[in-house]
């Protein structure tokens, strides 16, 4: 099967980059991918856009679906929010995201 796996790059809070291979047919989101690779993502709410512990900055130019109201609302309660801020759990892994580059935002106080 072609394109059944993609690669995403995640920079952790210490600044090192992790290259992660992700299957596209498992209905994963980026939070699950990061957590599954033992990156420090608490995901307190389990991916319901209710905790912001999966806050990332999108560094590559991939065009992602616009954030939903729920995602914007939760980002309102996060800190260090930038124009490229997203919640990892709201980013669905798909073939189009091959090469996606993100960086974990600082942990909220």
């Amino acid at each position, binding site marked *: 099967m072609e394109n059944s796996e993609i690669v995403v790059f995640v920079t952790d809070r210490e600044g090192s980059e992790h290259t992660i291979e992700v299957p596209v047919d498992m209905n994963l989101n980026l939070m699950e991918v990061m957590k599954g690779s033992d990156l420090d993502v608490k995901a307190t709410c389990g991916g319901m856009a209710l905790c912001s512990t999966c806050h990332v900055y999108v560094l590559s130019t991939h065009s992602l679906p616009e954030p939903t109201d729920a995602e914007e*609302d939760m980002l*309102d*309660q996060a*800190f260090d*929010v930038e124009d490229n801020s997203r919640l990892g759990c709201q980013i669905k892994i798909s073939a189009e995201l091959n090469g996606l580059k993100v960086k974990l935002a600082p942990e909220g*106080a």
Partner: protein
Amino acid sequence: MIQTDILIIGAGPTGLFAVFEAGLLRLRCHLIDSLPQAGGQLTEIYPKKPIYDIPGFPEVMAGKLVDNLMEQIAPFNPGFTLGERAETIDKQENGQFVVTTNKGTQHRAPVVAIAGGLGSFEPRKPPISNISDYEDRGVSYIVKDPEVYRGQRIVIAGGGDSALDWAIYLAKVASEVTLVHRREGFRGALDSVEKIKELSQQGRINLLTSAQVVGLSGNGRLQAVDVNHKKEGAIKLEVDHFIPLFGLIPKLGPIGDWGLEIENNAIKVNTFDYSTNIHGLFAIGDINTYPGKLKLILCGFHEATLMCQSAFKIVNPDKKISFKYTTVTGIDGLS
């Protein structure tokens, strides 16, 4: 001094159900929670979300589950100390524990069950490096007494209901109110958003959207906040008070210093009865850890049930438990 049989720290679903299981064994309970209401994560984070994995309930709203638990435990008359955080624990010579809250309320019990979940819910603090220098010197994370702000210049930050509601309320009291929010749109109730816009047009609220508070300065007391505005750049506002309202986040807090064995922010327990390394102290629900642990409401209920068996033996060293079904005994409440 509040005296009880089992003192439960945390009024989430686990702590609440422990009251029921304890009541069946005729043990009295008292609960402490830093939140002003019972229900833990269910009421604080997701009251309107449906839960599908509570046995016997194909679907139940989180808020409704908490209401049901409160109804189920009502016959056992639990006591509540709400809006206070359990701060310190001392073991007396007679083996009883004394737990004191941040407001100085004292509780005594032979058994303490920590059902603290992910930790005590505390206000989120913005990552401004010197913010702690100004806490209670101009910076507060909750509005306790609105009168404090009469005739004062205040900056509120945040975009949710509490930020909007307080901005509206304090516009009547303070001499100057500025609301700083990171984007143009607001979440929160539609009427409040309308009201904010109206007050802003009337010049009674200074609305700064697409902006974030990035710095604080003063001379022992807060005197100014630095705002970074997306278009206008840096703005300095002279103020008397800064109130960041960014919701609550659970933190393990003082329990981490109680001499318990901690692993990954959770308390290690023996799965026989969820006892900790300190005799008479138990940890149940999301706050504990053991091989195979799952953070589920169902598991918290089970842990609370087994914990009560050992608690009974500590409270009543000379009595034997006779195990009975509720179908046989019914519910015999405690006065």
